[in-house]
Structure formats: C-alpha cells, structure tokens
C-alpha cells in the first residue's frame, strides 16, 4: 500500500506514531421537534436547566482542577472562561426568554447559544475560536440535559492517534499523554485551546486538515508530524524509519556538562562484551561497571588467564575505538569489577552454599581473598596485562563488597604481588586505576579511609539499599524497603561522596538509581562525578545533565537530605 499524506497545521513540534482511533461524540444538538408550548411545564423545565447548569459547573471545576495538576495553571484557565460563559447574564437571559416562550430546556439552551455562536463565528482569528468555546459549553449542557453518555477519551489503548472533526478544550483535557501518541483534527487552528493543551501535554498534533481526514479508517497506522503539519497514513518503510529515529531522545556522542559547565561522566553497565558496541552507539563515555561473572557462569571449569585477557581487551578496544572520551586517563575509562559471586549466583565448580555464601556470608571480595584466591590471581594477571595494551589505557579495576580496610589492603597487596610476578616473568603489565565498590554500610563509614588508598569509589545502590535497610533484595515482601530514595540510603550516599572526595578519590554510582533520568538532578547535586547505567537510558540522562544547574541541584539535594521519610523525599523531588 502506498502512503497517503494529509496536510494541516502543525500544533506541536513533536512527532508520534500510532493507530487511528476515531473520536465521534454523539451529536447532542440533534433534538426532536419540541412539543406544543402548552404541553410544557415551564417551571419544571427551569428546574431542569438549573440542575444541568449546576452539574456543568461541578464538571468544569473538576476539569479545571485536574488540568491544573496534569498540565498547568495557564491551561486550566480555559475552564475559568467556560465557567464565566456558563453563567453569563446575556446567555442566562436568552435561556429565560426561551423557557418563557414554552420551549423545553434543551431547546431553550440551543436557541440561546445560537446567536452568540453565530456572532463570534463571523469574527476573525482568535474571536472565531471563542465560538468553539461556546459550542463546547452548549454541548456540555445539552449532554447533561438529555442524559447522553459522555464519550470518554481518557481510557484509550497505548499508541492511539485520536482523529476527530474537532476537539474541544474539555475533550483535550481528558487526554492521557502516556497513551495517546498523536492528534489529528479536521478543524481548529494553532491558537485553539485544544492545540495549546496538546502542546503542553507534549502530544504531537496536526489540526485543520479538512474533510479529507475522513478517508482514514479506524486502526490505520499513522505518523503524526506536528512540526511539518502532516499526517501520513500507511507510512512506507522510509517514513516509518525516520519517525522511529525522531521519536527517541537524540544520542549525545560526546561527554556532557551541566548548564553551568560541570563535567559528569556517563558510563554503561555491561554484563558481557557483546553489550559494548550498543553502549557505544547510545553515547556511553565509557564503562562504569563491567561484571565479570558471565565468564565464569554456565560452564564446568573457570576460564583461564588467556580467555579473560581477550574478553577484557575486547571491551576496552570497543570503547577505545568508538566512545566519547570523558576522562583524562588517555582512553575511555572501563571499570572492570573482579568476580562477585555468592550463594544466589550458583557456579557449579565453585561449590557455593546458599546459606554459607548468602547475602551476609562469604561472597565478593571475601571469596577472592580466601578460598578462591587462585581465581582472583588469574583475573588480576589478565587485567594488569590488558592495562599495558594501547586499548587498555583507560582500564580500571574495582573490588566488590569490601567492608574493612584490612580487606582492601589485602586486595591491594595481591595486585602488587601479581605485578611483581609479571615483572619477574618479563610480561608487559601496568597498574590500572583501582577502586572500591561501596555497597555495605561499613564501607560508607570507611569511605574516606578507602579513598586515601585507591583512585575511586563507585556506589552500588542495589546492594547498598539492601544492606542499609536490612531487607533482602530478592524477597517480594521487602519491596517497600528497596527504594534507594529511602532517607537512610540517601544519607549513606551523601556521606560516601563527601568522604570519598575528602580522601582524594572520584566517586561514581553504578546501581539502578544512576539510570533514572528523574533523579539525575539530585545525583549531580549530591556531587557524583560519574553515573553508570544500562545503555538505553544514557541519552535521557545525558540530556538531563545538560539542563542541570549545579547550584539549584545542590539546593535540591540539601532539602531532600533533610527529609526524614520516604514520602517527604518524594514530595521534595
């Protein structure tokens, strides 16, 4: 099928894709012939009108309130105007007169509005749009008077493009921007209230297309381009592709700074080397967390040094070739975390026990310094060798679950020993940047002592939340405790950043929290130097960082840190 294009007036500078849903409200102005005037009980009709007017007032006040909450104060004022029209003395007088003539209430309303609507229609521009307001109010009254069911726009399936002859302000105020990906109407202009509200809700809209729009069937695939003012039905592959690209947040392929010029590194969390190229495509400055467990899982014996060397080198090479270089270590930074296993991540040949190696048992660095020192050694050998390659210039190594300075010193001694061995063997090596993953309450208290001994700290918010809140992360019943915005967790993060900087280390974050664009301002305000996340959220977070003003972000962080309850934290955000 070839695509069809419908030209109109673009009302919102955005683009959406979805399936056509026709909105055809019942025509409430289509009234039966009025009965003979002497058959009408005027007093009863007057009461009927007054009841409808009171209901209309209540509806308008409710819609004004919900528009204020969902859209904004300015947009809600259209309902104030409608309330004023509803109670306009001139219109009320017209209705009174028609009721006196012996017309039933609906006919009286229709007759009283006819003159003013015609008067406004005859005027130009913005005045003509007041006629739309009057029709909207008249139809609201008629709907209430005739007991007509309201055609609801609020519960459409996700990905709906609403097609209509005209959308009134009250129709538009019901729209759910999460579900509706576009609006296209036959009538209306750029300054109509409906266009203004669509703009505020960020719904792509094209108005004033004319009667041709009627040629689009229900469920037709549509692209609504609010910038060009075009609706494309049954788009071909090329149009579809272009649309898909422009509906995503643009990728930013260079390091970003806040609006006031403070650099924040945005890195990717990776579970396998195969995830590296897509992360580069999303604009990752580097890798903030490369989990090495994939190399050890689902096999019968541990990988040897050569296999590990290849895997680590591959990720570094992918980034050295493609990524934006956000740091000053000579190549994009790639933080590799040494083996982090426990009873919840079974590995056959390691003989881990769910209780013995559970969340409060021997896991992470505790295993690497004890019964699995051999694996730790081969991992460090591979890493120090990669650090000496061209691609490995930005390599960094991070130790998981450190909770004492003794552990850290033991791990650092192991690095020294491995370096000595490689030196004696005449193998090329380099000592990479070294860091601690902060994920235990103990490590937040020792952050300064750690920072004095390593180059960086990276906060793992998933485990940190579990341990600070003493609520196991894989228990459904504990979900309420798992919010990293809990005041205790936020204060632990704040303490870690401050202590880390005091000890001379840079401080990053690699938990889920780092990838939530709604928290970017808070995290910048808390002073984090690097945020590492799933690659898909990188464009959104980079976009947000550019909008952040450091000073107001710091004020936000300070006010959030003062909050004693999760609810207050959420309120202040």
């Amino acid at each position, binding site marked *: 099928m070839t695509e069809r294009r419908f030209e109109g007036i673009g009302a919102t500078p955005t683009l959406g894709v979805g399936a056509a849903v026709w909105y055809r409200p019942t025509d409430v102005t289509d009234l039966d012939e009025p009965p003979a005037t002497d058959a009408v009980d005027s007093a009863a009709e007057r009461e009927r009108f007054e009841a409808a007017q009171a209901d209309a007032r209540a509806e308008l006040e409710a819609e004004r309130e919900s528009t204020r909450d969902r859209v904004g*104060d*300015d947009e809600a*004022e*259209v309902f*104030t*105007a409608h*309330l*004023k*029209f509803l109670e*306009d*003395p*001139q*219109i009320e007088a017209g209705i009174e007169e028609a009721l006196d003539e012996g017309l039933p209430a609906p006919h009286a309303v229709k007759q009283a509005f006819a003159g*003013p609507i015609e*008067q*406004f229609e005859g*005027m130009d521009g*913005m*005045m003509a749009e*007041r006629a739309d307001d009057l029709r909207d109010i008249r139809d609201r009254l008629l709907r209430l008077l005739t007991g007509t069911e309201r055609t609801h726009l609020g519960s459409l399936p996700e990905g709906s493009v609403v097609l209509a002859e005209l959308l009134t302000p009250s129709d538009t105020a019901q729209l759910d921007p999460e579900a509706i990906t576009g609006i296209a109407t036959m009538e209306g202009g750029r300054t109509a*209230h409906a266009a203004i509200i669509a703009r505020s809700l960020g719904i792509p809209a094209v108005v004033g297309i004319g009667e041709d729009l009627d040629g689009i069937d229900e469920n037709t695939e549509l692209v609504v381009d609010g910038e060009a003012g075009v609706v494309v039905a049954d788009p071909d592959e090329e149009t579809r592709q272009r649309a898909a690209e422009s509906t995503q947040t643009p990728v930013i392929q260079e390091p970003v700074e806040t609006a006031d010029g403070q650099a924040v590194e945005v890195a990717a969390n990776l579970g396998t080397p195969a995830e590296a190229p897509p992360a580069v495509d999303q604009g990752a400055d580097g890798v903030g967390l490369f989990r090495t467990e994939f190399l050890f899982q689902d096999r019968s014996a541990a990988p040897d040094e050569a296999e590990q060397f290849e895997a680590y080198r591959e990720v570094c090479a992918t980034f050295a070739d493609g990524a934006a270089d956000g740091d000053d270590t000579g190549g994009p930074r790639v933080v590799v975390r040494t083996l982090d296993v426990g009873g919840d991540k079974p590995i056959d040949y390691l003989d881990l026990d769910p209780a013995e190696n559970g969340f409060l048992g021997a896991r992470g660095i505790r295993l690497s310094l004890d019964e699995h020192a051999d694996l730790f050694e081969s991992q460090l050998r591979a890493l120090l060798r990669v650090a000496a390659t061209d691609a490995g210039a930005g390599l960094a190594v991070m130790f998981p679950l450190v909770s004492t300075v003794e552990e850290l010193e033991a791990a650092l001694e192991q690095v020294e020993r491995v370096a000595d061995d490689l030196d004696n063997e005449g193998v090329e090596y380099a000592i990479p940047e070294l860091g601690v993953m902060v994920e235990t309450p103990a490590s937040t208290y020792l952050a300064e002592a750690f920072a004095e001994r390593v180059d960086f700290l990276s906060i793992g918010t998933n485990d940190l939340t579990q341990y600070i809140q003493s609520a196991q992360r894989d228990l459904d019943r504990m979900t309420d405790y798992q919010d990293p915005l809990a005041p205790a967790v936020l204060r632990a993060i704040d303490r870690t950043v401050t202590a880390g900087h005091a000890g001379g280390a840079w401080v990053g974050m690699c938990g889920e929290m780092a990838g939530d664009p709604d928290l970017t301002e808070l995290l910048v305000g808390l002073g984090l130097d690097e945020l590492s996340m799933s690659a898909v959220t990188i464009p959104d977070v980079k976009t947000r960082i550019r909008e952040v003003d450091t000073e107001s972000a710091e004020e936000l962080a300070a006010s959030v840190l003062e909050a004693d309850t999760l609810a207050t934290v959420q309120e202040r955000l």
Partner: protein
Amino acid sequence: MERTLTVVPDDGLHARPAATFVETAGGFDADITVAAVDGNRPAVSADSMLGVTGLGVRGGDDVRLVAEGPDAEAALDALEVILSTPEDELDEMELP
C-alpha cells in the same frame, strides 16, 4: 466614575485575561460597563464574559470603564491592574 485605559496583555480581552477581568468585576457590588474607545459597539456589562470577549479588544487598544456604586473606585483600581499587567505576569498576582 469612569476611567480610560490602554490594554496591555497582547491577546487583549480574550480567553484568560477576559476570564480574570469578568471574575474580578463580578466580585464588586458596583455596576461596571466596558467599551472599546474606538469601537462602534455599545458598552457591555463587565460581568458578562460574552459581552467582554465580544468587544474584540486587542492589546494596545483603549477601553473606557464606567462604574457606579459604593465600591466603584476600588473596582476600577482592581480592573486597571488586570488591564495593565502583561499576561505572563498575571498568575503571580494576588488579585483582589
């Protein structure tokens, strides 16, 4: 009591400024009318949304307000504030 003023909001007496104007006028006991100085339409009651928007007054136009009643002066003062405030500053104001 009457007062002639130049309308500041770009959109003139429309939509939002008109709603605020009508609402404010309705809050006083005084009978208030408004007319466009250059227009040929008769003066309309200031508490009629239909009448006020129907004047077709735009930003920069002059209007004449006439108020009769015990609080006429206060009413004219309040309406003058609305007509001389740019639309984007209207929300920050505490209206009488």
